[in-house]
Each structure stands twice: as C-alpha cells, then as structure tokens.
C-alpha cells in the first residue's frame, strides 16, 4: 500500500519548542476530523441546534440584567401583577405566555437551558471517566479483576433506574447535581463500560502494547499512554448519547416529581400537569415549548454523535 505522504507541513527544522509542535499537530488533526464531520449535514444541523441553545442559555442573564425586571420575569419567583389571570396566553410582554403561577415561560425555558447543559455534560463526563478507566483496566488485566468488574456492570444494567431513584428520593434530596452523578455512575458502570472494554480488548492485543512492555513500560504507563488515548474517540462518541439520555431522563423524572429540582424543562411540564393544564389546546404554551426544547436538544446531541461516528469509526470511512 502506498501512503499519502505529501501535504505534511509540520517541520521541525526550525526546532520550535515541543509544546508548540504538539499544539500544531493537535490543531491539524482537529482540522482533518472537522473536515470529515462537516461532510455530514446531520452533524452540522445538530451542532447548530446545540449552539443555538448555548446562546439561548447565555442570553438569559443578560436579559435579566437589562430589559427584564426580576420581580416580573424571575423564572422561579416572578409574578406579573398586571395580568389578572394566569396562565396567560402569549403577548408582547410574555412572548410565550405565563404559567399557572404567573411566571414568564420564555424566561423559564431560557433559565433551564443552562442546567440541562450542566446536567448532560456532567453526567457524560462522569460516565466517560468511569467507563474508560474501568473498561481499560478490565481489558488490560483480565482474569479476576475483569470478571468482578463485568459482573458489576451486569448488575448495574439489571437494576432498574426508576425504582432506584424512587427509593433514593425518599431518603435524600435528588437535585440536579445528584441526578447528574447518579446518571453518570449508572451509565458509566453499566453498558458503556462493556462497549469500551470490548474496544480496549482489541487495542490490548496490538503489537504496540507489546512493544511498550518490552521497552520496560509499567502497567500504568501502558494504560495511560497507549490504551486510553485509543479509547477516547469512541468514548467521546458515547458521551454524546449519554447527554441525550441524561436530559431525557431528567425530564421524565422531574415530570413524575421524583427530583427536588426547582426549575427545568421537565419541571415546567410537571407544573402544567399538577395545575391541570396538561391536555388542553388553549394552554399549549405550557407544554409545547418545554417538550420541543427537550426533543430538539436530545436530538441534536444524538445527531452530533452520529456524525462523530463517521469520524471515529474508520469502518464507515472507506472512501
């Protein structure tokens, strides 16, 4: 096989410091990954939606400091005295109306976005850290350690998520942070570990691992310089799917009132439901914006994941 060797521009003839060269290499590989990613319209749409929601979240504190006075527009404590009856339909003052407690729906929607991001990303990071470490360790050592960790994963997969949460919520308060940790732990120890371990197994048998052992590399060295870097792309991919499932789970749990989260998209729907406005056409603005936001953001992360698959999985990149 002849390899493409032209087009490589990095030269050390000038002897730039190592970190500069590495930075340049990282930038170059980012660029080529981006080129692959950008070929998929689906991924770009997903990324666009995520950026939109990011801006949406950022805009909230700005609006609160400028045009919206906090007494009226605070997503949790606000109440519009000038309107006699709440919920009120969309108007110029309240672009998406107000909820049964007199709070601005748009403000709630924007305010919640940042927590959805925090929740999704935090649980994804926890998942990836756990799944990669455990997957790598289980694959590398094999034997008893592997058997123990895999039985643990089986156990975690088998225990149903909802009952755990019901039990847990009767003991302690399950807020946004606790929920993120919990989702992270469960998906980190469960299915994702198994996926990453199987990837790690295929890396472990590569001769470069043996070469590192012959050089005298310790287990720690091999796991952290050879095994894990080769698992990160696939871990990143699964991160996207964890974000999707975290946001979705939060919505479901909040809807059922199983969390102590004060405000989120799930809580918005929950409020509509507890106040008896859920299945009415005239108060659509209590239900549609929040559910649409959930659907869109979940779908966006999923689509980005699909497009990343294209980048990460050479199998799909034959030409």
């Amino acid at each position, binding site marked *: 096989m002849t*390899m493409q*060797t032209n087009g*490589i521009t990095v030269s050390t*003839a000038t002897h730039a410091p190592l970190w500069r060269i590495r930075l340049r290499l990282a930038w170059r590989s980012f660029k080529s990954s981006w080129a692959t990613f950008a070929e998929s319209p689906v991924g770009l749409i997903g990324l666009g939606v995520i950026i939109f929601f990011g801006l949406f979240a950022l805009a909230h504190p700005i609006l609160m400091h400028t045009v919206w006075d906090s007494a009226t527009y605070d997503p949790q404590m606000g109440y519009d005295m000038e309107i006699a009856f709440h919920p009120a339909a969309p108007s110029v003052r309240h672009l998406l109306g107000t909820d049964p407690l007199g709070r601005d729906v748009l403000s709630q929607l924007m305010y919640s976005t940042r927590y959805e991001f925090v929740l999704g990303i935090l649980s994804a990071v926890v998942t990836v850290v756990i799944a990669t470490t455990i997957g790598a360790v289980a694959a590398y050592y094999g034997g008893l350690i592997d058997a123990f960790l895999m039985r643990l994963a089986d156990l975690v997969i088998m225990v149903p998520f909802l009952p755990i949460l019901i039990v847990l919520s009767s003991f302690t308060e399950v807020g946004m942070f606790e929920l993120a940790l919990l989702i992270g732990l469960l998906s980190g120890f469960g299915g994702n570990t198994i996926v990453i371990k199987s990837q790690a197994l295929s890396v472990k048998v590569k*001769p*470069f691992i043996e*070469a590192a052992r012959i050089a*005298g*590399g310790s287990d720690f060295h091999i796991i952290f310089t050879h095994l894990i870097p080769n698992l990160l792309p696939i871990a990143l991919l699964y991160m996207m799917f964890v974000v999707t499932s975290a946001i979705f789970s939060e919505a479901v749990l909040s809807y059922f009132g199983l969390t102590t989260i004060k405000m989120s998209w799930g809580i918005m729907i929950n409020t509509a439901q507890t106040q008896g406005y859920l299945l009415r056409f005239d108060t659509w603005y209590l239900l549609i914006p929040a559910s649409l936001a959930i659907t869109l953001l979940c779908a966006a992360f999923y689509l980005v994941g699909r497009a990343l698959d294209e980048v990460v999985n050479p199998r799909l990149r034959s030409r």
Partner: protein
Amino acid sequence: MEHSDILVNIQNLSKLFPVGGGIFRHSDVFVHAVSGFNLQIKRGESVGLVGESGCGKSTTGKLLTRLLDPTEGKIEIASEQGVIDIASLRGKKLKTFRRNVQMIFQDPYESMNPRLTIYDTVAEPLNVQGIGTITEREARITELLETVGLTPAASFLFRYPHELSGGQRQRVAIARALIISPLFVVADEPTSMLDVSVRTGVMHLMQDLATNLNVTYLYITHDLAVARYMCNRIAVMYLGKLVELAETEELLQHAQHPYTKALLSAVPVPDPTYKRSAVEIKGGISKPINPEPRCRFYDRCPLADDSCRDNPHPELEDKGDQHFVACHKI
C-alpha cells in the same frame, strides 16, 4: 564453541498454554507451544528460526523478550552484569534488563500507536528507562532515524505512523528497537508484510546495523529464502520442537531431517526452468495439544516406523560440523 562467545543460552525452554479452563477451574489440557527448546546464539550472529505457522516461533520470541513467562527452562543472557537467567526475573530487575533485549514486529501497521508521533514512538524506550535528558534524547533519535534511512530525520519526527509507507514504518520500528542499544534483538517476521522492492532495503539495513552496532538477531520467518540471506545459521522448528539446526548453506544443501527436506522442496523457485525435487509429506500441521510422548513428526513422516512411535521425541544430535538433527532414523 567457546563459552564466552555465547550471548544467549536457551535451555530446555517450554511454554504450555492451557486449553479451555477458566478463572476458577484449571485446565489439564495444554498446547505445548514450545517444549524442550535448546539453542545457543553466539555474539554477533544471526540465527533464523523457521517453520510453518503455529509451530511456536512467535511464542519462542515472546519468551525470549519476556512478554510471556516460560513454563520451564532457562534463558541465560551474557550482559555487562554477567550471565543472567532472565526466565525468572521480575520487577525492577526485569525492567532494567529489558534494555538488553528488544523486538521488531511483523506488522508495520499495527506495531505503532496510531496516536503517537514517530518521535514519541522512538523515544518511548528512553523515556520509560529514564535515559538521557530531553535534548540528548532528541539528538539520539535524530541520529538513529538518519541511520535507518529516514532522511532528513527532522521531516519524519513529527509525523504519525499512518503518514508513512510500510517500509518507512518498519524502519521506525527498527529505530525504536535499537534506540537503547540492545545486545539481542528478536525480529518476528520483520519483512514478511513488505513488498519485494522495499523489502531488500530493510533486509540490508538490518544486516548493516548488525555489523555496525554489533547486534545479535533471532530472525523469525516462515520464508526460507529470506532466512538464507539474513541468517548465519537456521533452526527449523516443528510443533514446538527444534528438528534441525545448521549453518545456513549447509542446511539448504544438505538437509537431513525429513521435515526440513519437505519444507525446502515446497519453496517455489523464481526460475521457470528449475525443476524441484518432489518430497510429499502427509497431512497438514496440527496443534500440539497434550502430544503423545513420541516424535512430533511421526504422523506425517515418510520414514517413520515403530521405533519412532515407541520412543520419545528425539533429542538434537550433532551429525558432524555443528549440523544438529533430531531424528531417530538418521
């Protein structure tokens, strides 16, 4: 052979892999991948280990580099610290000793971490062993890359393996193996995945390095023609056992073991007018799973008789001129 000449002395080396079994249940069925393996390798020589796939060549290589722990036997290596049996070395001593023994792998596409640059790949042994400062390492790597024919080295240092061709990668693999100046290098089919036009260059390079840097090779290959060019002596392996060992030309011209003869007669010759002698042997190679205590070649051997069945596998015997054969019939 003078004793001081011997760099590697392998005695009665064996490796058994359990078949089946599990974490809690021990298997009593074993693949005898390498058994009762004896070989002395002299300083500066290159010994070829040839045989069909599955005969235990790679396992032997992995035992010598301690990627695998031997089930039994001694691997004595004469280093600066004196003769050390590495078969039972552990921990820090093993790590330090690894400077003396390195390996070159078959597949140039898989033997380098795709996420590390050439610099990081070649620097790894130095980093891990803590040899030299960063500037010293860089100078050494640059020099060695030039030596293995990757010139100018600066244009290769920060490329990734996928940006190099197969031949170039194999040169990087050679540089990685030689960067800590080992005494002994196990090369497991280092050229079998390279194309002819590139292969010769890598073969010549390995020979030049052997003379210039005084490296001793165990050259594992299934290709006898390549072994002819690369090795001073050739050892023929069959199902975990050495069956014949001699100087290269002696072995090629005057093979004595029936397996070696069959192997030689099966090698195609790049000359349409050459007529090969036909030596037919029965069946194909199997797996040495709990082998019977008799000659391993018994089932396929054209010379076999009852004595081959009733006696254990023959020992290697000197038939004159350092030509060793393991056969009851010769």
